């Protein structure tokens, strides 16, 4: 059996080795940098590997992202041509993401920013109760993650719409599609939640122009990719009073640099990319199955189009 490369700074190799070995007893699991002969590697399991990571891996059949995003794989200038590009579509990851987005929506909706401040100041202050049925949540990106977030939030009584490239028929969620309906989607959105994949089209999508089209007092949640948000435009919109605040889990540079203005901003909540991490135990079934398929010459699951890049 060819070897499996494991390369990430984010996850523990031990958990993955254990979870995959249970399913593939013959697994030859090699953790970067101790990978032996690069020609032994047939399958790569990676997250944000640096440029040139696949050099010499002439027998590489597939590259699998350790998360839902694959933009870090397409950033490789010498991507081996014949290799399948795979992602993990972990149902529990969609659940974890929906839960994190719901937490941000509820925190803003329930005036959490204000009540947390009152609590620090030991002040007993009641604000007028928020009205749920008129709070409009907008989900940017209606793939597996966006769809689950939208239905979860709608189940709690919010008015939810989704925006995607093509129209999506989902019960209880109004669909806006394509560039033509983007402005109308923004105009009806009080809480904007970005769950888009990173592509050339979605890079810098949330800029001053987009933010200005949201109603005054709107809130921004980003757990898509950092490069989709123009960070200085968000700060300007918050400081100018048009945007009420933001909860962000992804940033243009991660880890967020120590001197970044987001850290200290009272209206920006910084999360260290923990909205939906792949859990080795729940992702391992799929990865093991794909390793088996790739080495048996079968078509793998959850392949990513090299053209569309998602």
């Amino acid at each position, binding site marked *: 059996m060819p070897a499996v490369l494991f390369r990430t700074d*984010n*996850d523990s190799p031990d958990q993955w080795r254990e979870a995959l070995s249970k399913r593939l007893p013959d697994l030859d699991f090699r953790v970067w940098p101790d990978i032996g002969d690069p020609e032994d590697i047939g399958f790569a399991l990676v997250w944000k590997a640096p440029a040139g990571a696949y050099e010499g891996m002439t027998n590489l059949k597939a590259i699998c992202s350790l998360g839902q995003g694959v933009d870090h794989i397409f950033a490789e200038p010498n991507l081996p041509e014949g290799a399948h590009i795979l992602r993990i579509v972990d149902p*529990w990851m969609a*659940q*974890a993401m929906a*839960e*994190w987005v*719901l*937490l941000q929506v*509820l*925190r803003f*909706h*329930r005036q*959490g920013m204000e*009540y947390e401040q*009152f*609590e620090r100041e*030991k002040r*007993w*202050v*009641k*604000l007028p*109760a928020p009205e*749920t049925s008129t709070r409009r949540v907008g989900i940017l990106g209606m793939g597996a993650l966006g769809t689950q977030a939208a239905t*979860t939030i709608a*189940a*709690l*009584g919010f008015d939810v719409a989704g925006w995607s490239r093509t129209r999506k028929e989902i019960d209880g969620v109004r669909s806006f599609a394509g560039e033509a309906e983007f402005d109308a989607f923004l105009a009806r959105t009080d809480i904007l939640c970005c769950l888009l994949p990173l592509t050339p089209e979605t890079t810098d999508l949330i800029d001053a122009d987009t933010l200005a089209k949201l109603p005054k007092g709107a809130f921004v949640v980003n757990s898509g990719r950092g490069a989709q948000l123009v960070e200085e435009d968000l700060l300007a919109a918050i400081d100018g009073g048009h945007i009420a605040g933001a909860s962000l889990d992804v940033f243009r540079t*991660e*880890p*967020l640099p*120590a001197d970044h203005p987001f*850290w200290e901003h009272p209206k920006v*909540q*910084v*999360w*260290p*990319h*923990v909205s939906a*991490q*792949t*859990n080795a135990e*729940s992702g391992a079934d799929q990865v093991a199955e794909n390793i088996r398929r790739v080495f048996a010459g079968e078509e793998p699951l959850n392949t990513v189009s090299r053209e569309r890049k998602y």
Partner: protein
Amino acid sequence: MSGATSETPIVAVHSTGDGPSAWVAALKDEMPGVDARPALEIAGDDLARVDVSISWRLPHGVLASFPNLKLAQSIGAGVDHILEDPQRPAHVPVARLIDPFMAGSMTHHIVLQILRWHRQAAKFERHRANHFWPMSEAFDHRRLHVAILGLGALGEHLSRALTALEIANTGWTRSPRTVEGVASVSGATALDDLLARSNVVVCLLPLTAQTEGILSAELFAKLPEGAFLVNVGRGGHLVEDDLIPALNSGRLSGAALDVFRQEPLPSDHPFWDDERIYITPHIAAEVNPPTASIVFAENIRRIRAGEAPTGLVDLGRGY
């Protein structure tokens, strides 16, 4: 008042906080022609015309001044403030408010507290204060099991929402009660078993002589290490002196409290200084005059037609 004659029955309204005027106005919107007045302004012959009282924390003795009272309706899910009145006419039915708006508000508050704890918002807030970016972590909701103490309209609403979020939950009631589609147990022994397998406890009980002080060191000891407490019932459910020791021992890892023995919470209360305790100022389920008035109008109609009101309280049990 148009349409009101000396025979027209009067609805007596009382509320603390902003006072009764918003409630009187909302009730008149919902029920044109109703003779609704602030309870404390009713005097003389008019006292005998009052057939319904709609109140929050009406001063004791006022109910007894209405000789023809047919319903004491609470502005809120709790009726302890009515039952505590020693001069309350024992034969008068008491009704709690069951308003879907309130249930939605309560559920949002509780889900927010559970998710803040599950996703370790307080820890990440500390990291943020230190500009610290930790190693990545996965959070698995399958580790959660929520014990919902009290399975009235609010508990049932919460249970259904948690189930929709795929968060395991079980309701508990003192005496047996079955709610379709909701897992529940009842009685003292079942409570011990439930606590042993729950890492979140939500108190939505009514305050009665039997439930007063139920959130105590004895109850906490039955939970697994590191459990989380949400109290949105009444301040009297929690033995406040038992909470900080349970946090210090690690039995509890956090608490979100919306109700207190004394409200507003005194500024020198030790809860304010404890970062493991998240304090909100009794805002979990705000009563909302327009939606609550729909319920009140229906109950006024029912009482005047000789029918049973919604939310009727079993006076023997106190809820």
